[in-house]
Structures are given as structure tokens and as C-alpha cells.
């Protein structure tokens, strides 16, 4: 049931992506509205499926498939909020394809999940996972916006007045949006790191494995971005590039976290 719903949602996102890409070429309000409605409808279906699935697991996504699915959901939820708030449908041309790319592995891998070992169940775990995914989604959107910034800056610098130049939002808008997303993502990541450290320390003890190194480095990168913005007036291209690098690190941490679940279970000798 939930798989069907997510699959339907994925189709809606896919068509929305086409609509937004068409909007990029031919600016028509009808296309933007179609994209908005499709993403909204997809989110409702997707939300029902996730609610059903995660409700049965007391709020924790289990396995990489559900992780991807939740990530895609949050990413598009953030996009829809931005779209409603700023009315710049052109962002959809970059974010909806990204969300579909994230969701497809989630759909394909579905069914291969294993129940969470009882030993690693912690009251803080749902909060930890939700914030981790929310932060990751915010960074994904920030990275998407960063790509748009770099594209736009190239057009502005090279004085190429083509399609992208006329369609993309202003540099200032993209930079401001990046700043807000990074700040929110950074707050989420900080809480994730704190709860994660507490959680690991209270069960198997802190270990410098791939996941924790990637997460700490990513946190440091984002801390540096936020500080450089506030105190050194950094902005623009440098920050966009750093955001993308930081996002890659958080992504690595996300991808390795499922190995960690397994290794934690192994360390605790849980079959």
C-alpha cells in the first residue's frame, strides 16, 4: 500500500520536474502552477505513506530505502515552502529532478529493510534521525541553490544574455536563500551531532569511524561558512562552492550511517 503511494508520488514528482524544466524554457504561469500542484499532491500521498510506515516503527525510518524516501519528502517540502513564500518556480527546475533522483533508489531498494536491533533503540533516536534528515534536506536545497548561483554568476560575469540569464533569479536572491538554508541546516546538524554523540557514547563509546569523521568535518565546514558570512562578509561564489562541498560530506555521513547501524549492532553482538 505505502509502496504504491510512494510510487504514485514519485510519478507526480517526475511530471512536476518536466513541468518545471519546461517552465525554464518557456515561462508560463500554467506550467509553474502545474508543477506546484503536482509536488503538493505528491507530498500528500508521500506523507500518508511515510506516516503509515513510520508510525508502525515509532517514528524511525529503517534502512537506506526509507532514509532516501524521507529525504526526498523533506527536500520537496522545503522546496514547496520556498515556492509558496518566494514565488520563484524556476528553483523547481533544479530541485524536483534532484528529489526524483533521491527517491528512485528509495523506491527500488524498498523491501530490503531489516528491523532495528532492539539494543540501539533510544528515546532520542527519532529526534536525531528526523533532524539529521531535515538538515540534510536543507543542505541539499542550499547546494541546489548554490549550483544556480554559480551558473548565474558565470552568465553575469561572461555577459552571456541567454536563456539562463533571463530565467534565473538575481545573484542577491540566491545568495540570501543559500544563507538562510545553511543557517537552518547548521542548527539541525548541530543538534544531530550532539544527540548522536550522546547516543553513541552512552551505548558503545565514541569511535572515530568514517561516519563520525565525515559528520564532524561537515559540521566544521558549515560552522566556518556561517562564521565567515557573519564576521568576514563572505558571500557569493566562495560560499556556494563551500556549501556544495559541505553537502557532499553530510551526504557521505548519511550514506555510511547504515553501515554504522550494522556495525553498532555487530559491536553489541546483536544478531
Amino acid at each position, binding site marked *: 500500500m505505502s509502496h504504491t503511494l510512494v510510487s504514485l508520488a514519485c510519478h507526480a514528482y517526475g511530471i512536476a520536474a518536466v513541468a518545471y524544466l519546461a517552465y525554464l524554457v518557456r*515561462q508560463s*504561469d500554467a506550467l509553474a502552477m502545474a508543477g506546484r500542484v503536482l509536488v503538493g499532491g505528491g507530498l500528500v500521498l508521500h506523507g500518508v505513506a511515510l506516516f503509515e510506515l513510520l508510525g508502525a516503527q515509532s517514528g524511525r525510518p529503517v534502512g537506506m530505502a526509507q532514509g532516501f524516501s524521507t529525504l526526498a519528502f523533506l527536500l520537496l517540502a522545503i522546496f514547496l515552502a520556498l515556492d509558496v513564500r518566494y514565488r520563484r518556480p524556476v528553483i523547481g527546475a533544479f530541485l524536483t529532478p534532484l528529489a526524483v533522483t533521491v527517491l528512485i533508489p528509495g523506491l527500488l531498494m524498498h523491501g530490503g529493510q531489516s528491523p532495528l536491533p532492539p539494543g540501539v533503540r533510544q528515546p532520542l533516536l527519532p529526534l536525531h534521525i528526523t533532524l539529521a534528515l531535515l538538515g540534510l534536506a536543507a543542505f541539499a536545497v542550499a547546494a541546489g541553490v548554490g549550483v544556480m548561483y554559480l551558473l*548565474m554568476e558565470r552568465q*553575469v*560575469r561572461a*555577459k552571456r*544574455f*541567454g536563456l539562463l*540569464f*533571463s530565467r534565473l*533569479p*538575481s*545573484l*542577491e*536572491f540566491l545568495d*540570501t536563500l543559500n544563507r538562510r538554508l545553511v543557517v537552518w541546516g547548521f542548527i539541525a546538524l548541530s543538534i544531530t551531532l550532539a544527540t548522536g554523540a550522546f547516543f553513541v557514547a552512552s551505548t558503545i563509546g565514541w569511535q572515530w569511524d568514517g561516519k563520525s569523521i565525515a559528520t564532524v568535518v561537515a559540521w566544521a565546514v558549515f560552522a566556518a561558512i556561517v562564521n565567515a558570512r557573519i564576521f*568576514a*562578509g*563572505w*558571500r*557569493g561564489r566562495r560560499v556556494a562552492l563551500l556549501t556544495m562541498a559541505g553537502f557532499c560530506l553530510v551526504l557521505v555521513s548519511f550514506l555510511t550511517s547504515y553501515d554504522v547501524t550494522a556495525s553498532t549492532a555487530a559491536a553489541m553482538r546483536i544478531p
Partner: protein
Amino acid sequence: MELVCIGLSHRTAPVVVRERLALSESRQVEVLQRLAQSPVEVLWVSTCNRVEVYLSAPDGMLARERAVSELRALGGDEALDHLYEHRGEAALIHLFRVASSLDSMVLGEAQILGQVKDSFERGQGAGAVRGELTRACAAAFGCAKRVRTETAIGRAATSMASAAVQLASKVFDGLKGKTVLVVGAGEMGELAARHLQQAGATKLFITNRTLARAEALATEVGGVARPFEELFSLLGAADVVVCSTASPVPLFTRENVGALGKGRKGRPLFMVDLAVPRDIDPGVGTLDWVHAYDVDDIQKFVADNAAARAEEAHKAGVLVAQEVARFVKERALREGMPVLARLRQRAEAIARSEVERTLTSLGDGLTDKQRKSIEAMGRAIVNKLLHEPTSRLRAVGPEGEGNRLAGAAAELFGLLEAEMEAADAEASALAPVPQQVATGAKR
């Protein structure tokens, strides 16, 4: 009621003539009240690029004469040489095109719609704009909105100064809250200052070697004049700079602009150079936080827009033709008299074709006299048959009962369908070349 438009614009009259006809609001109201004596309605559109009088009157010629004498009193005989005139549907099309900014000096500029709306409200306030012109204006505003939303004409940059503002909007998210510096208070500087002000620039500084000129321009556009010695301190605070001085050497170099970098903390600076020879050395653009554009860049931008603009103007023309056709159709439905006219037209067409057929079948054996009596008979049947309904409809007038009778007649004779079809055919045949509609269709 006939619609007449008479006036002059940047297309026909030089500014010396146009400015003579530019009236204050209170004087416009006086003129409106003089011209608009029931049942005549008057709309007086006055902008820096045009002065137009739209009249809706039972006798178009009479109303026109009075408007012309009013214009002569204001602008002298010379003004009359620059007048143009549109009547009937051509006047409607002109009104729609003006409101949609298709007749503007800067094609697609946004202010004209607001200016026409102001004129409309002033006319309503003075009691000069009532039923007929209210409906025409409402339809014209609707058309302008369609043109704005369904074509990209408003987005196409059309002059150097407006292109500069458009380019700035690709770096900054609007000019609200931004500090703008205009260097050079010449003609180009003035245009730039106006465009920047209209684009919503919050702080507008103007500097010029001769301070008096900067002051004059600042008062005119609502900016602040500053002495030329403060150039670099102003530059330090600015977000957007537009320069157009006659300086033979560049004012801004990589060194003197780069020195400001520290204080700005990476805050971007958008510089446009409209001067030839250039005011901004090309090296300035290599600074990381500066976006510098010169005349050639702007021209390239405008040229890249030109093709798109032509296409958009064409699209907009099609929309105007559609909207005018719709308005005319609706008006025909509303008014009784056109139903009568259509009925007569229809009957005459039938009679003519039947007479033709009879004459053809009778061959060449007929004398001229016989031929003429057959033709007269056709006309007489039509006249006798239509005499009664015509006089009855005329007797009850266009309101209430007349409307009902006219509606019934239209229904019985299937006139509306025929009319709609004719209007649609006309619109689709003429739509690709909207100019032709203006000359081709007169009521």
C-alpha cells in the same frame, strides 16, 4: 454612440508641442467638464509622451470638432498639424494598444497603464467617463493585463537606461533598499536617474562636475545632489553606479575602485558605463565584487532582446485584436441598434443574392429598365418587411423593453450566431497583422 480618439504623441509631435498640451490635473478637469456634456463622454489621457482625447458621442464629428478647438486653444494652430485621429473600432484598438504599452516610446514599459488608469479615474470623478467609456476602459485594462501576463513584452529591455536597470536586477533582488549613484547629470544620466527611481531605488545620489546641474536633476527626480569631490566616498556606499560623464579619461580604475574593497566587506557593486569614451576602465570588472558593464555590453543585451521583443510585440498585437473583437461582440449583444443594422444588412444581402440569381437565370434578354425594376423590387420587399420591426424597436429605445425586443429579434433571425462567426472570422483573418484591423474595420 461613436468612439473617436484624437490626439498627438511622441510618434507625431515634438516635445515642444507636447509640453504645451500638458495640463495640470485641475485644468484637465475643467476641460473635461466643458467637453463632456451629456450624452458625450470624454477621457483625457495625458502623459509626457502623449495627449489624447477619447470621445464617445452620438455624433462623432460634432464632438470631434469641439475637442479639436479645445486642443487648438491650448496648443495653437501648430498642434493641429501633429494630430492623428481614429474612429470606431480603430479608436478602440488604439486605446487598447496604448493601455497595453504597445504604442509607448519604451515599448512594454509599465507606467502607461497606471497613467491611463489615473486619467480614467479623473474622468469618472469629473463625471466625464460614464457607461460607454467605462466599459471600453475596463476592457482595455483587462487587455493590458493579458498582454503583461501572457507575453514577455514587459520584461524586454528597450533603452540603454532601462537595460541598465534590468541588468542590475540580475545582480540585486530589486533596487529597494539599495543605494544608487548617478555620475553625470547629462541627458543619459537623467534618463538613468528616472529609470532607477521608477525601479524603486531607495537612496538616489546624483553627482556632476557642475553641482548646479546635479541639483536641478535631483529636484526633478527626487534624489540628492552631491559635489563631485565626494565621488569616491559616495562610491563606497553605493550598490549601483551609472555613469555617463564627458570625461576624456576613465574616472574609475582598478586601483581607485579596488581601494574601496576592504571597507565594503565583499558587498557587490554593480557599475554601468553609458559614456563614450568610457568612464570605467575595463580592469575594474576583474575585481571579484564588481560587476561592470559598458555601452557595448548593454547594446549586446538590448540586441539579444530585440528579436524576442519583436516576437512579443507580435503576440501582444494578436491579443489586442482578440480583446477588441470580444469587446465589439459584447457591445453588439448589449445594444439594440446593431441588431437592427445587422438584420437589415442580412436581409439586404439575401435580397441582393436572390436578385442576382434571378437576373442571371433570365439571361441577357432584359432591358436596363427591366433590370432596374427587379433590383428595386428586391429592395422594396426588404424595406416593407423591415419597416414595422424597425420603427417599433426605435420607438421603445435601446433600454429595457427595447433590449428585450432586440434580443428576441436577434434570437429569431439567428443574428448573434452569424455575428459571432463573422467577428471570429474577421479576428482570425486579421489577427496576425493587428495594424490592418485599425484601418480595415470601421463601424
